């Protein structure tokens, strides 16, 4: 039990540390790598909390697909030293003290709420089958709404690409 607890807090510390590093890096590629590490650490946290399915999805979808697209965009932009300078200027104290202060207030409120509710909730492992049953049972409306949102995104992307193709027809290939 103590080993599990130690590992839980270790991965929590890794998640916090890598997120802090992801925020403060001037080099976008380095920041993204720390963000990936942070997502992996959160997956481990989910696993320890008894949600293996959520942990697997965190790795497959967030760390494995969405962040790949982020890195893809960074590669496409091919950021130069100039953008790094700009990023460094934005990390100046005068730029971030107000958002930092506001977030600190929110954090204090969150800690207060978390300590106020009794933490005697029973932790138990949730199997993939249970997740599926509740997703397509009581929460089916949420699933349908999410799929509609994705469809809207797909149609929008198709629309943009369609115009591009029609304009360039006959010119390329």
């Amino acid at each position, binding site marked *: 039990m103590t080993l599990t607890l130690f590992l839980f807090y270790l991965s929590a510390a890794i998640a916090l540390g890598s997120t802090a590093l992801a925020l403060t890096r001037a*080099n976008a*590629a*380095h920041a993204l*790598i720390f963000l*990936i590490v942070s997502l*992996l650490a959160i997956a481990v946290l989910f696993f320890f909390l008894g949600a*293996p*399915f959520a*942990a*697997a*999805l965190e*790795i*497959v979808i967030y*760390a*494995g*697909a969405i962040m*790949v*697209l982020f*890195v*893809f965009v*960074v*590669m*496409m932009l*091919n950021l130069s030293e100039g953008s790094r300078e700009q990023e460094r200027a934005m990390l100046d104290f005068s730029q971030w003290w107000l958002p930092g202060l506001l977030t600190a207030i929110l954090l204090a409120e969150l800690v207060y709420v978390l300590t106020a509710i009794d933490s005697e909730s029973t932790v138990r492992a949730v*199997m*993939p*089958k249970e997740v599926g049953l509740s997703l397509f049972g009581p929460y089916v409306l949420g699933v349908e709404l999410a799929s509609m949102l994705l469809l809207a995104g797909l149609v929008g992307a198709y629309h943009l690409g369609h115009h591009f193709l029609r304009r360039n027809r006959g010119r390329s290939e």
Partner: protein
Amino acid sequence: MAELKIIGLLLLLLGGAVGGAAVMTWFERRVLGIWQDRLGPNRVGPFGIVLVAADMLKLLGKHDWVPPFADRPVFIFAPTAIVVAMLLGFAVVPYAPNVMVIDMNIGLLFFLGMTSIAVYSVLLGGLASHNKYSLLGGLRSAAQMVSYEVFMGLSLMGVVMLTGSFSLIDIVLAQEDLWFAVTQPLGLFVFVIAGLAESHRLPFDLPEAEHELTAGFHTEYGGMKFAMFMLGEYLGLILISCMITTLFLGGWQGPWLPPLVWFPIKTLAVILFFILLRAAIPRPRYDQLMSLGWKVMLPITLINLVVTGGVALWLSEGGF
């Protein structure tokens, strides 16, 4: 006692996988030689097998050089990601009834997660090199891997539906009477092609495509760092073959021979098939690869999903 067994298994697995990947470099060249009507590497030792040691010594002896214009920490980190992710993937493969590191009820998803983590190796390697060929190779690999990951995951959902579990042990046991290769031929077809694209081997090695991109993402790499990329690629090949055996070819099950013999036989057969594909099929153009994925593979997987779901539902209602 249980811990000792697991540690022993881990060491065996580590040695087996890395050693297997090393021997595979020689085996592949030799088999390719036979199929292309030439000898292949046959000089060093019996059948040329000592060539593996010679290659290793050469790679170890090379100058471990980092280009001055490269992003040093990322450049050094990149080759390790693929090897670590692929080795972790071997943890969920059931080799025999009691021979596996861990039986998770999300085993299949764990495998998919590890293959998607391995993508970063190629991506970051291409990004950190600060070289136009590497960057193009990395960009291609990102698009290719993200696309084929979709079909890879979806093609396996038919198997999951028929089994009713993500656990690889359950999937193997569900094939006691009939392999999923028979009931899920479309799933197998898509998984083989997606697996080939994920391990970016010929004919789908667009990220390195030496005739247009010099060596693609690993243009700037040499010595042991280059060897790590190659090791990861061969580990990926072995892992994909293990998964095809487990998911579609009945895993360890088979008549007469013990499970620990059947599993390697089937895996080796799949690896031979992959090498044969390399020998037989030319590399497609990059846009052909992408349109093959989205215009052929995706509809096939979706049809497979709908039909499998319908049949599974129909059977659970009692058939006729």
